[in-house]
């Protein structure tokens, strides 16, 4: 696979783009997902319905379509040019939030009632109870599904090539078309995805064990 050596800078650049979009996506998804989960649990009927539409849109349509919608409609609607990578960040963040909201809400509900009552009984406000009692426990539970989300998000970033972003997959496509060494190129690209995901899974595993509450096994 010597021929690949000269393309390494290109592959590295693509890889870094993929990593950036993935990390930004899951982190933005986490923050927004927490807000959506809290909104859904406490916001009342109207807010809950709006959140439901949001979640259904992002879970119920292909991410490629979502990328196209944002990529083509924002410049038209807002009459401004937008960098494709910005579209990537936004769409993957919004998309991940829709999935993460479900995990976080489920985890919050599982610790919610007793712990909330106990927290109120010592004089904490609802917001404090969520911050200091419900969320710290819910986020621990959410780590394993979070791993799945990370894994699937990483792979779906391959769709970025369709809005002309040079991600890892798009680097592979270019190299394969220039060299005609299709099998080797794509195998190498797949290996990079595999390694990156494995490393991240290992890190999450270590984190999960580190924050585990002594004495109880947390089950997701």
């Amino acid at each position: 696979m010597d021929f690949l050596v000269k393309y390494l800078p290109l592959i590295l650049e693509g890889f870094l783009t993929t990593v950036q979009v993935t990390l930004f996506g899951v982190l933005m998804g986490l923050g927004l997902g927490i807000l959506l989960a809290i909104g859904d649990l406490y916001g009342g009927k109207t807010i809950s319905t709006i959140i439901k539409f949001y979640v259904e849109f992002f879970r119920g349509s292909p991410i490629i379509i979502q990328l196209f919608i944002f990529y083509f409609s924002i410049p038209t609607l807002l009459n401004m040019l937008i960098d494709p990578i910005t579209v990537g960040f936004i769409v993957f963040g919004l998309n991940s939030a829709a999935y993460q909201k479900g995990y976080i809400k489920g985890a919050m509900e599982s610790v919610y009632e007793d712990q909330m009552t106990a927290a109120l009984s010592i004089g904490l406000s609802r917001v404090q109870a969520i911050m200091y009692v419900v969320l710290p426990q819910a986020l621990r539970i959410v780590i394993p599904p979070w791993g799945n989300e990370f894994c699937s998000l990483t792979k779906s970033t391959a769709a970025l090539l369709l809005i002309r972003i040079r991600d890892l997959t798009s680097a592979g496509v270019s190299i394969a078309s220039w060299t005609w060494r299709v099998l080797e190129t794509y195998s190498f690209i797949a290996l990079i995805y595999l390694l990156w995901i494995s490393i991240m899974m290992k890190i999450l595993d270590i984190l999960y064990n580190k924050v585990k509450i002594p004495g109880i096994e947390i089950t997701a």
Partner: protein
Amino acid sequence: MADIVMECKNLWKIYGKIVAVRDVSLEIKEGDIKLIFGPSGSGKSTLARCLAMLTTPTKGDVFLRGECLTRSGVNLNKARARIGFVFQHIWLFHHLTALGNVELGLRRVLKLPKKEARERAMQALREVKMEEWAHHYPAQLSGGQQQRVGIARALAKNPDITLLDEPTSALDPELTGEVIDTLRDLAKKGTTMLIISHEMPFAREVADEMIFFDEGTIVERGLPELFFTNPSSDRARRFMARLIKRTRRE
């Protein structure tokens, strides 16, 4: 005449068609120990929760040192900080150590500086003889130890009154003993308490007044001696007979 710490007037709690609490009026004075007992499902816990404003009463008023808590616009968080509550199923915060459980309210509700909160939390744990276990998590403690932490958590803020909802009924007889010992210590110190319990020897020893509760309301109330010798209502008499028989068996 001692001050009235907590009072409820014509309190009702209705869930759909079920009347859980029916027109209850009660006052608890400084240093009082009231003991409520009665069949399960009779609304004792609901009453305690209404008094702590953990559920909103349907009708009637609750007063804490003369301040009406059932009026709209009252800061309930502030009021709850002055009421200690001990739960039947304990409900410690799983992710915090014993110390963390006690400290949380001191830090976030009373806003004490870290060092002072720590000292006061340790003091509260000392009072329930749990100092040695301060750095253990709830799941690493026995039920009795957990409940003593629960009591420390409720008392650390020096509440005006502490409500205890069957603090020993989820524990086996051996563990019950250690919690009862803790409560006895508190009673000696003059802590104002409303205790829901069926620990009759303990009740006889510490209660200033016993209240027999059934079908959501107070059926009979009086000195412990009254219940142990000659309750006037049939229902109380039958219930006492059963309880005493059970206690002897144990």
